[in-house]
């Protein structure tokens, strides 16, 4: 199914359309996964990156390209992307767990340390996860970035958490 029919991509579809980080890079620690697949006129991620790891250039409808060796997985781009389409994945958080960082613009925010229900790109429950970090400085302009710890092996699927009511 195409994204304009379903509204989301699974990881295999994404990897078929975009450069995703190599397995080797994933094994070195946190890295950006840019899930932007349409040529829309937009480039804030490029200037957000202090390591010059994201390239768009001219015209600004070019898709962002990540230089995975320059990317440190710092997450500055996550809150800057107006499409909320950038995630940080750390597949080697511990021997058995990974982390996924994602933008989350709902209230209330979960608390650090809380157990949350991690969901995939279509909102389906994948597993329970633990909130290890929430960063929400003024410079993020009301787009907090949440990091959840999940079992290794589901980090390509988990992209958000269920909203708390």
């Amino acid at each position, binding site marked *: 199914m195409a*994204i*304009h*029919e*379903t*509204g*989301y*991509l699974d990881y295999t579809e994404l990897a078929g359309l975009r450069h995703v980080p190599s397995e080797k890079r994933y094994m070195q620690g946190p890295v950006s996964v840019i*899930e*932007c*697949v*349409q*040529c*829309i*006129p*937009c*480039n*804030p991620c*490029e*200037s*957000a990156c202090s390591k010059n790891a994201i390239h768009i250039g*001219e*015209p*600004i*409808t070019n898709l962002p390209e990540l230089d995975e060796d320059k990317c440190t997985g710092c997450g500055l781009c996550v809150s*800057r992307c*107006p*499409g*909320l*389409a950038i995630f940080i994945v750390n597949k080697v958080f511990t021997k058995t767990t990974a982390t996924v960082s994602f933008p989350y*613009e*709902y*209230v209330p925010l979960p608390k650090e340390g809380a157990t949350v229900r991690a*969901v*995939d*790109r*279509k*909102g*389906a429950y994948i597993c329970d996860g633990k909130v290890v970090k929430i960063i929400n400085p003024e410079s993020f*302009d*009301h*787009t907090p970035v949440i990091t959840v710890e999940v079992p290794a092996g589901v980090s390509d699927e988990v*992209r*958000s958490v*269920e*909203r708390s009511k």
Partner: protein
Amino acid sequence: MEKREVVIVGAGPAGLAASIEAAKAGAQVLVVDLNMKPGGQLFKQIHKFFGSSAHHAGMRGIDIGTELLDEAQKAGVELWLNSTVIGLFPGNKVGIEDGSKGPEKKLVTVHADEIIVAAGASENVVRFKGWTTPGVMGAGAAQTMINVHHVKPGTRAVMIGSGNVGLIVSYQMMQAGIDVAALVEAAPKIGGYAVHAAKIRRAGIPIYTGHTIIEAVPGSDGTVSKVITAQVGSDFKPVEGTQQTIDADLVTIATGLKPSTELLRLMNCELVFDGAFGGYVPLHNRRMETSVKNIFAAGDTAGVEEASTALEEGRLAGISAAESLGYILRGDAEKERDVIWARLDALRMGPFGERRMIEKKKILDEFNGKVGTPVPEFQEV
């Protein structure tokens, strides 16, 4: 009769941008808006905008609005709020129901050397059984209620339409604490950007493409309590036996916008139908001047697009109006316009903008064919 050099209809992104450029060049500018607050739709847009980071991209619409308003004030722009332009009349007369001086409105005629119509657009309606039931509203109304007035219009919504407005307002309703049951889209494809759709999907909200609304069913209190939808065939007619019922007390409609061109019609500006821009749009040149001299159009009135394009078109119109008044030399104005048109071209690239880029060129060509290129009165000395 009151006189102003430039009168701008509408204080949205196009009108404000036009006012800033014209006033900065030295023109005496009056902006008239029927709302209580300026900014048009900008102050409802709490999401971060796409575009070039050199020009507001990544900023939330509400913050862009604040910045523009500040710039307009610094440039000395006069603003009449709560005031409606009720007509444009021969001899460049602007009829205004002025509500800016107090509770009592007064009819005022202002003579303007240059008139810029940046009146925006209006929402399209969909007719279905129960479409007048309380709880059925335009997506724009729901967005105003949650983001401007901080009032929830319902508790569980069905959104009709999956263009960017449908997707963004659905997201914002969730942010306001409203459940969104589903998005219903008659076309076989999601209309808006995939990244906006992805936000909706990972919140667990289904988007039913190839579906339509059949009925908004009132409950015992007379307001919406259920929504009946059905699949549509390739003829867009509902398919028997595919009906489903969704519990919801709110139906929001986001099925496109059409340019507000009434004032331009009054002045007999030449209009042409263009589906890419939402309906009838004025022919205009690169200066944003219509077929009637000294009447300009900008923003959604000149073809429904986005706030970012409206801003740039407003700048074009403001610079050109100042040029017509002699505040900017023709060569300088031309240089500034070239830069802005390059930015507009960049905003109209890619699969979503391409058609608008082509159609805009057609409108410019048709203007040149029918009207020709008028020369501003003031020439470089």
